[in-house]
């Protein structure tokens, strides 16, 4: 269901999820958006795919917590001490704020990235006004990588058939480098040229205004989703204004 949402709605979600907590100015707000993101990712059955990202950023956030906990400028209240190393409450809270923000950004972007086909995402960007040329460059990256992996496998097979060892000692591997990489590079150059001609033949460089093969499909869920998001945004602006007026 999440996969069917219009990528635009997901982009709006990213925007609101990061602006609203800043407007409200409470950690609870950030935490609730993280929770919402987790719920959405679970519905989309892609929550487990965020694990590697979280592990990596978790490591960095841990060092942030340690350094801020010990050295933050406004440190006065002692939280706890490990031997002679003293951790302060202010620094830890500051680190918590950073951690929440980072995780919030990661989670909200994950919804867009993990539940949208790359080609759909690029098409949405083009709909939003990105130049079709740049859009093509972006989407071709997604096609070229698997294609190159496949060529690489064939080339390895062809050279191994000619008695070349590709496994074993470092020296053997270094020796195998040129026979493997040169055909890959040559093939890529040739196919790039052919691709360019094929695109040009089909009017890629035409100055006419382009139409789209697929219309953006907005469902009822999109409307509800967007309405709720805009409502949250307006409420948080209201909240901010109230605080100022006090």
């Amino acid at each position: 269901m999440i996969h069917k949402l219009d990528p635009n709605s997901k982009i709006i979600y990213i925007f609101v999820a990061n602006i609203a907590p800043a407007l409200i100015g409470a950690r609870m707000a950030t935490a609730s958006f993280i929770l919402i993101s987790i719920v959405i990712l679970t519905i989309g059955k892609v929550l487990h795919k965020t694990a590697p990202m979280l592990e990596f950023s978790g490591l960095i956030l841990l060092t942030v917590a340690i350094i801020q906990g010990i050295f933050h400028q406004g440190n006065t209240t002692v939280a706890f001490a490990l031997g002679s190393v003293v951790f302060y409450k202010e620094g830890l809270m500051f680190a918590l704020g950073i951690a929440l923000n980072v995780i919030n950004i990661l989670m909200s972007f994950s919804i867009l990235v993990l539940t949208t086909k790359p080609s759909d995402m690029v098409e949405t960007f083009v709909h939003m006004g990105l130049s079709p040329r740049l859009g093509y460059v972006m989407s071709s990256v997604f096609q070229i990588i698997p294609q190159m992996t496949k060529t690489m496998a064939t080339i390895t097979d062809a050279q191994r058939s000619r008695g070349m060892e590709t496994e074993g000692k470092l020296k053997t591997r270094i020796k195998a480098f040129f026979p493997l990489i040169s055909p890959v590079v040559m093939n890529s150059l040739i196919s790039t040229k052919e691709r360019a001609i094929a695109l040009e033949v089909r009017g890629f460089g035409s100055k006419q205004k382009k139409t789209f093969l697929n219309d953006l499909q907005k469902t009822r869920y999109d409307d509800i989703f967007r309405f709720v998001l805009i409502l949250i945004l307006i409420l948080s602006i209201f909240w901010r204004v109230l605080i100022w007026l006090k």
Partner: protein
Amino acid sequence: MTRIEVQEMHFSYTEQEPILKGINITLDERSTAIIGQNGAGKTTFVKLLKGLLRPMQGKILFDGKDIACMTVAQIAKHIGLVFQNPNDQIFKNNILDEVMFGPINIGMDEQEAKRHSQNALAMVGLSDCEDKNPYDMGLSERKLIAIASVLAMDTDVVIFDEPTIAQDYRGIEKIKKIIRTLKAEGKMVLTITHDMDFVADCFERTIVFAKGKILLDGQTDKVFSKKEELSQAYLEPPHVTQLCNSLGYDKVFLRVEDFVSYVKSKGIENK
């Protein structure tokens, strides 16, 4: 004499989709064509013979020795395989060096490798452009370079994967000549192809693959006389065979010359 025995061989890339389902066959010195629809498992079969893929079940014996205990590089000394696309292997900027790469890899010294390479280039008719850059040549010449680079390794078995693609009449005639020469040298020649006229002209034995199994195997004229099985495998006999069939001849003709001489001796009306 070279023999390859394949016993009860199974292979699949993914668990759901078996590609080869129990292949039993003995390949001998007869020149052999492997034909069959796209996706029938022909290329997979020769990659297994080459050790590039390993069977899930079953054995491949090369002269009685199981190839499971040989590395690809060791197998390369005995079995040569010419890939479909020459661009997947060419990396030197001089044809002779390119052809010498294989022989040197399998342990020939410089001089021996050079001698074999020059012979191979002579065989494909490219002796006079040893020093040219392979990338300056057209696709059909580059295919010949790829063939030469395998011939120069002087293997007992030579396997071609679609050698006639991108070749004009002259190129095909050249390849036919190469195959006959190899055969005369006592080498085992296997070829995957879709070109039935080429099969009829050049190969003593034909193996038909269909849906991961061997559907037909035998002398080429016998195989081409089995119309029903062939259509089952979505294959057509050579043109002249089809023509004689439509004319109602019982005898199977594989080559135009055979048919012409038959008609000349017996007269057109006399079936």
